[in-house]
């Protein structure tokens, strides 16, 4: 059995694309092997910033041969009266590359057995350039030199070896060979790989750890060792640290961890600023002491060995100090001004050129936030906080610190607001209004923060939609889907029953041109996020749609509740019967919608009386907003409804009787509406 190696040599691939590209290379290779019926043992991927590779072990000598039986025309059509092969038969043979001599006759038809011989592995693998390498797709593309071919970064070399033999192919003008490149600085430019199976070892002696997992493990163990030596706490398990580790792993080929430090005086700067400087800007790992305080040290990883590490440490310390020097300057300078000073500048800051300024956005958000606060019956203190925070919550955008470290927006707002004497609720809300910042990110905890977060996102969605800047496909440059998801998750978390429809309708009317958009379009956009979120927790599509349609005044929390209610009861034994009975009422009721009261005097049978009495027991006010109770109440009508339809012709010739029956059905229909659009439910 043979081993095959493919290595694509590239200029430095963006760190965030290395791992996904490695995964893609595996998938494409597996598909390629299946298509060509070539059997292999394991498919092992490798990656560094400068290369993507796969090693196939136990490669079969040739692809599996294939015998396929093809049925031709029936015997009576295959031969004419004279016993000669007909045109149909000759055509069939020609199409299969055979002659009539090869025919077998069986079951009244002529047959051909088509035999495809196995193809030598080397011939198949020579196609991997066209069918795998060139076909790779990336989220960032470029072209280079005079080529129109696009790739993630320029391809500089290709290795394709079947054991010791080069498999010949080329991509653009790059021809396969047996020479890879070692580490940019620690090794020679061209390194010969003697045999496919010796790939990992060859590169290791050329100072490249080509196995991404092994390299990552090496990095964490080096980092941990240094942290232990100094008794520093290095939290490598956090999501942020794992992301950084992943990134660092894809920037280096031969990692050597080191530590550096900075003057203690910079610890006066808020931790968030220090951490951002270290982690986001310099790709450093920060460390703490056992009490959880940030220490004036950092860990980082060099793409190289221990030699002259002092230079590297000194250089990195100098760069960090320059950043901290800036941060310290901004921190002090920013405090010499006031919130009013910053707000004056916010008045000139663009929100979006088609929409207007951030200040106008704040004013609209403020109006929405106050409406929400009233609907939620906030007390006077809370309303005062909402009013205050709406007036200032973007002020930190104009501070020097946020100008320099834009990822600290909100975080610095909270810090500075406290320093400027704002109360804690206002300060916290400034930070929380950005939340959640990702699909699974933390949600605003304080009531003021949550109201502001919802209002800010609603205004963004409405005004961007009004300006025609609507997300399409995977394209959502302004993060409006994330904003809508944030609204849904925040309402859910707070269990705030808000009728979004009237709230938005009033808001849109009040704001005029800047918010000129159909309310329904905005609501559908938000409801689509409800759909996504409920599907994500594993609820059936039909049940989700049943709960989302007929959204009424669009109380998101209630809509999610009723979807869950339907999902819970979909396992009930009588679910099918209940849904069938209720949808039958629904279908009829909409033919003649009426709000008339039911008159028992017009009943003609017991079933009518029974249904009327069952329905009349409902405390309708109680059922509104309680999907579980509503479902149970309606489920109890299943039998009365069934009997009703057995004994009653709704369309009586007597108009009074008929109208009375529609009145009865409409009473139930109105309640069903509050449960959703049951017609969507697929009954098995």
């Amino acid at each position: 059995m043979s081993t095959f190696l493919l290595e694509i040599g590239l200029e430095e691939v963006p760190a965030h694309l290395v791992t996904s590209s490695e995964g893609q290379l595996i998938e494409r290779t597996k598909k390629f092997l299946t298509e060509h019926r070539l059997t292999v043992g394991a498919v092992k991927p490798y990656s560094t910033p400068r290369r993507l590779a796969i090693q196939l072990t136990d490669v079969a000598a040739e692809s599996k041969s294939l015998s396929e039986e093809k049925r031709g025309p029936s015997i009576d059509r295959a031969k004419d009266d004279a016993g000669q092969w007909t045109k149909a038969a000759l055509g069939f043979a020609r199409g299969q590359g055979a002659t009539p001599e090869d025919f077998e006759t069986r079951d009244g038809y002529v047959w051909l057995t088509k035999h495809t011989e196995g193809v030598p592995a080397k011939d198949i693998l020579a196609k991997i350039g066209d069918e795998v390498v060139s076909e790779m797709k990336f989220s960032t593309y470029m072209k280079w030199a005079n080529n129109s071919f696009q790739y993630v970064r320029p391809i500089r070399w290709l290795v394709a070896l079947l054991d010791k033999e080069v498999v010949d192919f080329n991509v653009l003008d790059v021809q396969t060979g047996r020479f890879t490149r070692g580490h940019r600085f620690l090794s020679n430019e061209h390194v010969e790989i003697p045999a496919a199976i010796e790939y990992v070892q060859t590169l290791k002696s050329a100072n490249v750890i080509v196995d991404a997992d092994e390299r990552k493990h090496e990095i964490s163990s080096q980092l941990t060792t240094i942290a232990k030596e100094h008794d520093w706490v290095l939290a490598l398990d956090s999501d942020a640290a794992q992301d950084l580790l992943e990134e660092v792993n894809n920037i280096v080929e031969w990692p050597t961890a080191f530590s550096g430090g900075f003057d203690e005086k910079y610890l006066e700067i808020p931790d968030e600023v220090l951490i951002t400087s270290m982690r986001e800007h310099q790709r450093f790992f920060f460390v703490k002491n056992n009490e959880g305080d940030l220490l004036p040290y950092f860990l980082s990883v060099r793409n190289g060995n221990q030699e002259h590490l002092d230079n590297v440490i000194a250089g990195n310390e100098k760069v960090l100090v320059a950043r901290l020097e800036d941060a310290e300057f901004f921190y002090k300078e920013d405090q010499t001004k006031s919130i009013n000073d910053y707000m004056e500048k916010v008045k000139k800051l663009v929100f979006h050129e088609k929409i207007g300024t951030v200040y106008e956005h704040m004013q609209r958000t403020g109006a929405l936030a106050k409406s929400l606060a009233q609907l939620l019956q906030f007390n006077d203190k809370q309303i005062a906080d909402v009013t205050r925070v709406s007036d200032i919550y973007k002020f930190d955008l104009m501070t020097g610190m946020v100008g320099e470290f834009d990822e600290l927006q909100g975080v610095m707002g909270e810090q500075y607001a406290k320093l400027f004497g704002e109360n804690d609720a206002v300060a916290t809300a400034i930070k929380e209004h950005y939340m959640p910042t990702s699909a699974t990110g933390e949600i605003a905890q304080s009531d003021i923060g949550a109201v502001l977060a919802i209002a800010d996102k609603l205004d963004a969605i409405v005004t961007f939609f009004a300006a025609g800047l609507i997300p399409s496909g995977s394209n959502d440059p302004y993060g409006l889907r994330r904003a809508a998801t944030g609204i849904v998750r925040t309402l859910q978390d707070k269990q705030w029953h808000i009728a979004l429809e009237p709230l938005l309708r009033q808001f849109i009317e009040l704001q005029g041109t800047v918010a000129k958009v159909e309310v329904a379009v905005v609501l559908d956009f938000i409801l689509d996020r409800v759909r996504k979120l409920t599907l994500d927790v594993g609820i059936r599509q039909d049940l989700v749609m049943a709960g989302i349609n007929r959204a009424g005044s669009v109380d998101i929390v209630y809509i999610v509740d009723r979807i869950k209610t339907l999902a819970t009861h979909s396992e009930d034994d009588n679910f099918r019967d209940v849904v069938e009975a209720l949808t039958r009422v629904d279908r009829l009721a909409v033919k003649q919608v009426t709000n008339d009261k039911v008159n028992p005097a017009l009943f003609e049978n017991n079933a009518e009386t029974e249904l009327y009495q069952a329905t009349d027991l409902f405390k309708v006010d109680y059922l509104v907003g309680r999907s579980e109770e509503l479902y149970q109440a309606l489920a109890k009508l299943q039998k009365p409804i069934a009997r009703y339809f057995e004994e009653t012709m709704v369309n009586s010739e007597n108009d009074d009787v008929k109208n009375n029956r529609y009145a009865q059905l409409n009473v139930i229909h109105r309640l069903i509406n509050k449960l959703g659009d049951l017609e969507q439910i697929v009954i098995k």
Partner: protein
Amino acid sequence: MTDKKLSLQDIILTLQQYWAKQGANLMQAYDNEVGAGTQSPYTFLRANGPEPWNAAYVQPSRRPADGRYGDNPNRLFQHHQFQVVMKPSPENIQELYLGSLEALGIKPLEHDIRFVEDNWENPSMGAAGIGWEVWLDGMEVTQFTYFQQVGGIEVDSVTAEVTYGLERLASYIQDVPTVYDLEWGNGVLYGDIFKEPEYEHSTYAFEKSDQHMLLRHFDEFEAEATRLLDLGLVHPAYDYILKSSHTFNLLDARGTVSVTERAGYLHRIRTMARKVSKVFIEERAKLGFPLLKDHDLRKKYLGENGKYTKENA
């Protein structure tokens, strides 16, 4: 660190010699105000069309909003870029770049050099590229870009652009706390030469510029550029586009351009930049792309009747 610290002018001389040896023609700094080496016609115009082009030059770059009255250790109204462009991008451009660091005495084995993804875009010039920033022991010293689009037009032949921030690089090499402590040459410090102009230009840009004059100039420069473009006078037109761009930057620094106006001005510059790229290619095509020697490429881009054959609307 190197034993003998190179002065800023030694750094320039070294880079010029090095890149001249690699086949770049040494141009002189463009005699018009620009915000970056990219805006020089030796990059911006030459990146268009299929003709090869290799050049290197120092470009003083003015960014009025970055002025800090000579007070900030790193930020400047005007800094200096050393710009290298090679088109089509050579296969070994990264190695050539690393060679230039060695020429400056920066031995890769004694440092940590990384290519960190950083894609570049200048929307007002309709230009975008893919590339990296180069980190030297954690400090960004060079911007490395493969141009993909210039003047809103997808390029025929990709230019590799290497832009060294000379002050940063020199700060690293000389290991001084502020740019003003750098030695330019012969014992004369950067501050001796530039501290006063930095103060004066900052004062001018932030406090004293005549906005009415600047607004009027912008309109006039734009009108002139547009008129010249219609006449096919690419280079004079481009000069006026650069003047418009710089005038806008001055207005912007003064903080008098309102939100909606700002977008409008950028749009006007972008419109001119798109047009000049198109006209440049047309005019070069009329000349028969004289720098394009490759037979196949001549056939591809000039077609049978000697006309540029690529759709570039």
